[in-house]
């Protein structure tokens, strides 16, 4: 194994970066395709159907046990992909050709770029430090993810506008308005997390790896995941994530009931497939960020950080603490969590019907945004009281204000029915 490490270290840094980047893309792209199949299967199971289970290439039909894979619809993935590559690629005559062709590419770029700032796992080096596996370990981490992933909406606007057709146009307009509305609450909901991380006197950072580091400390509060410390922030972030990734119940941009196919009405074959994969890649990056911020990243369980697992492994056999094995383990935990989140996305999709557009706007501006601001104020006050050690009187005052504000918002009998 050390030979592999030496070979890797002897490579030129640029070559290393290219290989790492391609490896990440090479995982995310097929996972996006696999998610589309998983979506079909999950929806089928939830609806009491078997789902896609027919495809079986004749040249592997003789393999014993292959019928299980067939029942799981694994070969439909190849069939779908092959169809998308080889079917006729129509280019409607009424579109603005340059931007029409540009839109799917623009959709893919931010979806695959954001992953650079997202740590995907970690290993423990000889000094016992946890080193994150990340393409670009920069301090602006989360800011980079937010900045680049918001660019994804340009592809929807471009697609909607360049299609030169009413429904795609409406879909593009809706997507942009929705993104602007929910971007605010999303950003506000993560500020408390970084207020918590950036203790006074420490080094200021927006790095996602640091957020995980903070959830793997010893002690009751140190090992606690942020979803337990800040549940409201987590909920606001998750709801905004659904809206940002255009997933049901917020898929206003597609809305096949009222907008035919939304922004991709005029698209077909591979160009449509790129939008599809981009959507799933966005979901994956979004869930990855959610997991890093609120669900402990690559730590298997709350209060059981990765370093503790490595200690246990070391007690079993010193070979198991090799960085490659630990790295693969942490990657497995992290990818497993991401896939779990993708399942939650699908689970919610087949549970909650689509909101009306005015409900989406109302919820974004009138419910989530005030909630995110209130949450931010509460944690700002709490963190200030904690760090300045102001004493019990201030904690009591904060509790009274919080309870009063919550009561004023939720217990008001004169309030009209929500939404």
């Amino acid at each position, binding site marked *: 194994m050390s030979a592999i490490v030496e070979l890797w270290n002897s490579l030129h840094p640029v070559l290393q970066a290219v290989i790492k980047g391609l490896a990440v893309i090479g995982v995310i792209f097929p996972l996006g395709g696999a998610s589309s199949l998983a979506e079909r299967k999950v929806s089928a199971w939830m609806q009491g159907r078997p789902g896609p289970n027919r495809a079986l290439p004749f040249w592997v039909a003789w393999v014993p046990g292959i019928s299980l894979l067939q029942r799981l619809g694994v070969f439909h993935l190849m069939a779908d992909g092959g169809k998308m590559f080889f079917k006729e690629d129509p280019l409607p005559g009424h579109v603005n050709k340059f931007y029409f062709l540009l839109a799917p590419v623009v959709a893919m770029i931010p979806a695959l770029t954001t992953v650079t700032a997202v740590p995907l796992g970690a290993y423990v080096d000889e000094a016992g430090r946890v080193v994150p596996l990340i393409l670009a370990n920069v301090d602006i981490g989360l800011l980079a993810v937010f900045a680049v992933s918001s660019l994804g909406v340009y592809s929807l606007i471009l697609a909607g506008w360049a299609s030169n057709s009413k429904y795609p146009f409406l879909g593009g307009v809706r997507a942009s308005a929705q993104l602007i509305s929910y971007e605010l609450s999303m950003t506000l909901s993560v500020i408390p997390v970084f207020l918590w991380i950036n203790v006074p006197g420490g080094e200021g950072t927006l790095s996602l790896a640091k957020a995980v580091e903070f959830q793997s400390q010893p002690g009751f509060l140190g090992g606690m995941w942020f979803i337990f410390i800040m549940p409201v922030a987590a909920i606001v972030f998750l709801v905004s994530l659904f809206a940002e990734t255009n997933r049901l119940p917020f898929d206003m941009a597609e809305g096949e009931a009222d907008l035919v196919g939304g922004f991709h009405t005029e698209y077909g074959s591979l160009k449509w497939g790129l939008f599809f994969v981009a959507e799933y890649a966005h979901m994956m990056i979004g869930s990855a960020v959610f997991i890093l911020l609120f669900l402990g990243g690559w730590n298997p369980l709350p209060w059981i950080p990765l370093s503790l697992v490595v200690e246990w492994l070391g007690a079993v056999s010193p070979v198991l603490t090799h960085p490659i094995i630990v790295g693969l383990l942490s990657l497995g935990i992290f990818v497993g969590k991401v896939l779990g989140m993708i399942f939650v996305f699908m689970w919610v999709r*087949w549970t909650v019907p689509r909101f009306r557009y005015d409900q989406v706007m109302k919820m974004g501006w009138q419910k989530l945004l005030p909630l995110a601001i209130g949450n931010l104020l509460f944690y700002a006050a709490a963190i200030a009281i904690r760090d300045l050690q102001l004493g019990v009187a201030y904690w009591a005052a904060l509790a009274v204000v919080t309870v009063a504000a919550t009561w004023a918002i939720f217990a008001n009998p004169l309030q009209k029915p929500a939404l």
Partner: protein
Amino acid sequence: MAYVVERKSLSLSERLYLPQIVAGMKVTLKHLFKPNVTLEYPDVRPAIPPGYRGVPTLVKDPNGREKCVSCQLCEFVCPPKAIRITPGEVPADQPQRAHVEKGPQAFDIDMLRCIYCGLCQEVCPEEAIFLQNTFSMAGYTRAEMVNDKAKLYELGGTLPDQHFKWDKKKAAEEHGNAHH
């Protein structure tokens, strides 16, 4: 009478909305592990209940004799005019069919016209035509979709007779009562 529906104000959990979503997710999760309710059709066929009106067929009596006497009532009653019968004499070399005077020379049902109404079965005095459990027909040409006599008997087979009309008539004749 006009009446006013009382609009109850929403409860706290309804206004929070998330508990409602969680309740819905519990339901969908339960369905995720429930057995499928669908049939994998070409491999598994549904059980056809008795009285099902499938493709009309001609049947033989328990003695293996042709029941149809080509009275053409079904042809006349058929609303979409799907049935066409060419009546013919019963050949003399078939003594077991000597009890009737006529049988169909040709019997065609055009399944592109048939509406599966079952009037032919209703009207048949000999209980010779039945809508049975075949429900899917396919063919590459229009001609293939016309069931001729041989095909109709192949689809129909032999059904148990409830009445044994001709046996009773024969027995009555032997006892000297021509009109039982």
